[in-house]
């Protein structure tokens, strides 16, 4: 069968609408009857990813494919790229500007949390071109 495919534009530098794509995905997963523990993992991982695109990349696109056994989320942006992915993955490492930190974001837990709450995560990034993060959450304990 074909997957349920959803696409969202994530607006840059707009904290008011940030999280609306992950909200829609949460709502869809609940209607599909996906178990609450997986909905929560997706919610946390996708929200963090969406916020990252807003803070660092001036927005981007989210493409989501839902299968009977898993969800695949692809977050693609045309932002500055990540020079050192290993460093960016460390707990607490952040390049968020002070203005963003003052809003309570930028604690350096975004990427680590995305990895923690997904079953696989792949980051492809080219400095100056952009970043594509692909996350998968399996619907099985």
């Amino acid at each position: 069968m074909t997957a349920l495919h959803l696409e969202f534009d994530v607006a840059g530098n707009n904290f008011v609408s940030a999280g609306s794509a992950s909200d829609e995905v949460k709502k869809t997963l609940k209607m599909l009857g996906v178990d609450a523990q997986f909905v929560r993992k997706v919610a946390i991982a996708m929200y963090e990813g969406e916020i990252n695109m807003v803070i660092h990349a001036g927005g981007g696109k989210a493409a989501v494919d839902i299968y009977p056994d898993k969800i695949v989320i692809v977050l693609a942006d045309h932002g500055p790229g990540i020079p050192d992915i290993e460093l960016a993955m460390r707990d607490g490492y952040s390049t968020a500007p002070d203005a963003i930190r003052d809003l309570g974001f930028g604690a350096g837990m975004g990427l680590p949390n995305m990895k923690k709450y997904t079953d696989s995560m792949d980051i492809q990034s080219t400095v100056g071109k952009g970043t594509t993060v692909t996350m998968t959450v399996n619907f099985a304990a």
Partner: protein
Amino acid sequence: MDKSLHTVTLDRDKCKGCIACMKRCPTEAIRVRNGKAKVYYDRCIGCGECVRMCPHQAKLPAYDPLESIYKYKYRIAVPAPSLFGQFNNLDDVDLVLNALLELGFDDVFEVARGAELISEETRNLMRDGKLKKPIISSACPAVLELIMMRYHSLLSHVIDLVSPADVALRLAREKAESEGVPPEDIGVFFISPCPAKVYALKTGMGLDKPAADGVLSIGELYFKLLPVMSQLKDKPLKKLSKTGILGVRWAASGGESLGIYQNRYLAADGMENINNVLKAMEDGTLNYIDFVELGACPSGCVGGVLNVENPFVARVRIRALRDKLPPVANKLTDEKKDRSFYHWEVTPEAQDVYRLDSDLSVAIEKMQRIEAIYKTLPHLDCGGCGAPSCRAFAEDVARGETTLDMCSRR
């Protein structure tokens, strides 16, 4: 128990089939079918938003009439603290409680007393440190139902305590029994600010069996209390109140949180705000907060649709009672109850009211059909089709509950 009889009903003659209630229903439980508002009760949380919004007074909140108390020989009134916010210049809550006796009750027992006990048990549980944070209050039954329907992953955060009203109702009954009143003669009646509590108390949410013998409306009693209170005004009053201000302040948003004696709490009221808080909790962004108090009604229980007074005015009056009451008057040690007395006997379970199909593959196919239908719609959310939004209409079509030709704007 049939929800339609205990949340809201419709006066079909008054309903014009406009879309006011449907557009505001926070759980999308209302459709306009054949020119009349129809509630899908499996989705109704009893919040009363439709009662508040209806321009034709066609939405009737359900409650028991005052006459129903006479089925019992010994009648006890158990008023919610929001009742005290309804009266202008109330110096003494005993004036209200004495007036209740004049209306036909044999005794009174304030819900605020139950609230003070629940506050203390909440503090004990928080000190034990075994609860999943942020802890969500279980006090608002509309919020509890919303979580059961929409936020399954947060159910484990809800504190497993019964409502202050249930505590008060059961203690009131026990007091009468200990005074020698035959159990079958005793009727305990909660006086409610909202339809969600009417439903919760009548069905005994969280309990093996309901603690209330009936649930009355603050609004109905208000007009009967007023003349009696003016008669009693200059007469000596019986000392009946046994609550402190801590319990009474539960009537307004933030009042319950004051009772935990800690600072990292969040208190939100109004359906839109509480939905936003619950969404943020799902996203894991509120993990540094200890306690979350959520009330479906604007300003908290004083905003319930069975009240008479504007919630902001009622709130001022509740606050003004601070000078008239002791800080706290009820302690767990006074009641000598096992801790289990304050805890749920039945744990409220997740409800799958939005689920498209029990088979995930089939559900995905249905969702694809919904997406395909949605793309052909005008995205005006005009409500003309009888559904609150184009998306809800697409869902209804896919579920076979309506047909595409109901949309006149395609």
